[in-house]
């Protein structure tokens, strides 16, 4: 969304690719199976993000039309969820929990390590487009605080060594969970 101060990003947005027909058909089919068309909105956004990495305005407009919603309505939902991206992100997305347990257990130190090694601040993407670093709310993993999410993998008891390892893995293109 252009209006809320969503994190700045280093990835250029570029022109969005056409909304693919197969995705359109898939969403139309989901809509047809919902009691209210808007019921398909979240899944439609999830699928679109899965395909393109993020949700651009043009694609959002397509989805809104398919779900018989206004753009404002749909974007209200998109911006509510941490895992739906309204700006381009890097190949990997690191989301470090900054809620209370993790903060108590050393999130600041982990964060500093990430920033230092990646050379970016929270909310930014590395110039090579490899990594986007974001904060996130409690992951429900407080018993292993500090916790983080790397792409779809959950990490617990994160320390500076985990950071180094994960960054190495991301550079080599493979990230596996350890929790």
């Amino acid at each position, binding site marked *: *969304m252009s*209006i*809320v*101060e969503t994190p700045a990003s280093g990835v250029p947005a570029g022109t969005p690719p056409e909304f693919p027909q197969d995705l359109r058909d898939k969403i139309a089919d989901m809509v047809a199976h919902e009691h209210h068309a808007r019921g398909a909105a979240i899944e439609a956004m999830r699928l679109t993000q899965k395909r393109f990495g993020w949700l651009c305005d043009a694609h959002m407009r397509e989805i809104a039309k398919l779900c018989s919603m206004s*753009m*404002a*309505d749909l974007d*209200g939902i998109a*911006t509510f969820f941490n895992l739906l991206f309204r700006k381009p992100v890097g190949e990997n997305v690191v989301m470090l929990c900054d809620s209370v347990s993790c903060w108590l257990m050393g999130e600041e130190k982990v964060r500093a390590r990430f920033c230092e090694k990646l050379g970016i601040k929270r909310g930014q993407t590395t110039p090579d487009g490899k990594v986007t670093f974001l904060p996130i709310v409690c992951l429900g993993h407080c018993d292993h605080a500090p916790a983080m999410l790397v792409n779809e993998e959950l990490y617990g008891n994160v320390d500076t060594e985990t950071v180094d390892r994960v960054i190495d893995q991301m550079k080599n293109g493979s990230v596996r969970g350890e929790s």
Partner: protein
Amino acid sequence: MATIHIDGEPHETRDGENLLQAVLEAGVDLPYFCWHPELGSVGACRQCAVKQFNGPDDKRGRIVMACMTPATEGAIISVSDPEAKEFRGEVVEWLMTNHPHDCPVCEEGGECHLQDMTVMTGHRARRYRFEKRTHRNQDLGPFVKHEMNRCISCYRCVRFYRDYAGGQDLAAFASHNNMYFGRAESGTLESPFAGNLIEVCPTGVFTDKQFSKTYSRKWDMRGAPSVCAHCSVGCNTIVNERAGTVRRTINRYNDEVNRYFLCDRGRYGHGYANADTRIRVVGQLIDGVHHQVPSQAAISHFATFAEDGPVIGIGSARASLETNYALRSLVGAAQFSTGLAEPAHGLTLLAADILRTTPAHTPSLHDVEQCDAVFMLGEDALSTAPRLGLSMRQATRHASFLNADRNRIPRWMDASVRMMGQDFISPLMIATPAATGLDDCAVLTQHAAPDDLARLGFAVAHLIDEAAPAVPGLTEAESTVAGRIAEALLAADKPLVVSGTQLGSAALMQAAASIAAALMVRGKPAALSLVLPDANSMGVALMGGLSLDAVCDMARDGKVGTLIVAEADLTRQLAPERVEALLGQVRHFVLIDHSESPLIERAELVLPAAPITHSGGTMVNMEGRAQRFLPVAFPEGPVEVSWRWLRDFAESIGQDDRMAWQTLDDVVAAIARELTVFARIGEAAPSEQYMLESGHIRSQTARVSGRTAIRSHISVRDQPVPPMPDSPLSPTMEGTYSTSMPGALVPYYHAPGWNSEQSLNRFQQEIGGPMRGGYPGVRLVDAAEAVWSSAHYSTDLPETFAPRDGSILLLPESRIFGSEELSALAPAIAERAEPAVVRMAGDGPSEVTLTLDGIRHRLPVLRDDSLPPGLAFYPAHMTLRAFAAPVWVSLETAEALA
């Protein structure tokens, strides 16, 4: 009735209330944000916390949200409990962590619910010392200003805008501290009710952009009760003035009419009163040029004109009853015209006729909200009477309320009632030529030509009561639709039929009347609403008079010496050559008006009239409700309320015995004496003598500032302020004030501790109920008097619509912004109005040329496939000034021309 105990005191409450309502009605102060009397409770802000105890022995109690807790018999609560107080203090402190504390530069300051509630909690020292999040604001168009940093995330805005008013383009974005209330991107708010956000938002996020340009604090302005002049609904307003200019219009609560909300045409239409188009001097045409002359000279001139033959008076549906009556008295009933040309004249009189004779109930807006099936026939009421459209939208919620009742969910539990009621929608059925703004909540829409719509209506009436005439030659599809409509209306407890004059069709109005009557025959307490074009159309109709066509005939026959036009623009009623002919055939032409119209060039005498913001008077709305408006600003210079000019004319020709009126009260009394239908108009509001306790109600607040400073460059002495003509209100801060003053006299809302419009709670007998001081206006036509039999069913059924080759039937589209005469002169409305386009179906040319009244017009086309073939819509009164009724026009496309 239940008895609850608030801090040890027993209080009676109404059944089904929540604790917050009960506490407020008991006169106890309890802060709240997200609850709104018309929007109900959602428990979002946690500000209304109180302690509730299980019984007399429970000493610990627990914190509950008052707005989410039913007030049950014997409930024991404490508002002053220290824990509850501390809780509320913390809530407000949290809500304010990101608030910029910018009251001194905030338009809301001084009438801010957030300020009031913060003070009410007793919280005054902020401990938050970190960085505040800031938002980027949006340009939301000419009406509403946006300052998101002031938001406390109470969700009232989206609940009003989306849930209540059906708007789509405002939403809540993001979450927790980043909550953002706005549009997906900058741009004009689409809803015609967006202006209500200003009052609904308890903080300074949404404020009045126009007011902001000539801003003044609430306490520094004079206020007066007024009535909206921009459609036939007659919403009640408060108009504010300072230093001679009208500053803003806000809602004035009338439990039967507009209640808590106005439309944007009404909120921003007053701009005409300050505009350059106002007439402020007396003008006399000498050798083709207007010269400024003294008032007395103009009056003497009139006296000489009057010797030149019969004087004919043309009144106006946008002028007060008093002005119309004064003109009628001056010229005589047989020489008085309604100011309306056919078909508007006949239709307006027909509406009054139906109002008098229908066995059906004429609903107030509040009644409309209670109806459980609505059929809108041939009138786009959302455009012609916007606030009525908003009430019709509420009627569709009826089934969801019944569903809530069945599930024992209190009706004020807003989120639950809406969520559970998603599939319980009371039927709204719409039969119009094209799509309307209410289609999204309609169960049925039918698009057809006016004649076919009327036939559909008559068919519905026949299905309901066989004694109503049958319609021959209906298609099968039409019969099915008629069947569905009849069935839904018969299944309802309170069915409503809405129609009006928009499409210039008497048959449509008759069909609507027949349906309502048929429902009555079947034992249904049906309601019938007929929308008229102007604020006082019904008043003029009840008064009666000649059509403009009749005046034109008289002029042609040389029977008009002097023509007096009072507050009417004939160029909106008659095609240009007919205006020419009329004015060419009268010896003298006198114009009394407050705003310029093309007529002014031709007037031998131009007399400056006071607009309703500068005068007092009475208007009768579409339901036959007489309502009084009072002046908020002094008429400038020679400006006078029209009836005074007319009175002076009468005096100048020696008729002063009949029209020796000094004040508004005298005219009101004369009307009530002479015309039985208006016998009760005096009850619309208290007279000028009215005193509240020992004095006149003050129209300025007790703390108005700058009284002497404002003219200190001349003298620092306190100048005596002259009395405001025709008003029972004192023009200054001197005077009395109480929350039990008559509703028709409220100059501004204020109660101790309550500086915002939310103080209204203190003025009502109960929340959402009548004003403590009464006076919701007076209904002039009593349905009980109607004598009706099936012989009254109209048998005048139109033929099926037949499209014509090479021609289209051009229908008048009503625009909320742009069609209405006075509001169109307001800069803000003009800015909001979209360009006039021909709407028609199909992939046709982007431009058409059509010939109307002998003049060729080249007009842009917008594709609208909801229109049936052979029909097109074009905005009434916009670029084609006199266009307001369907007309066949021959079409040439731009290509054909080339």
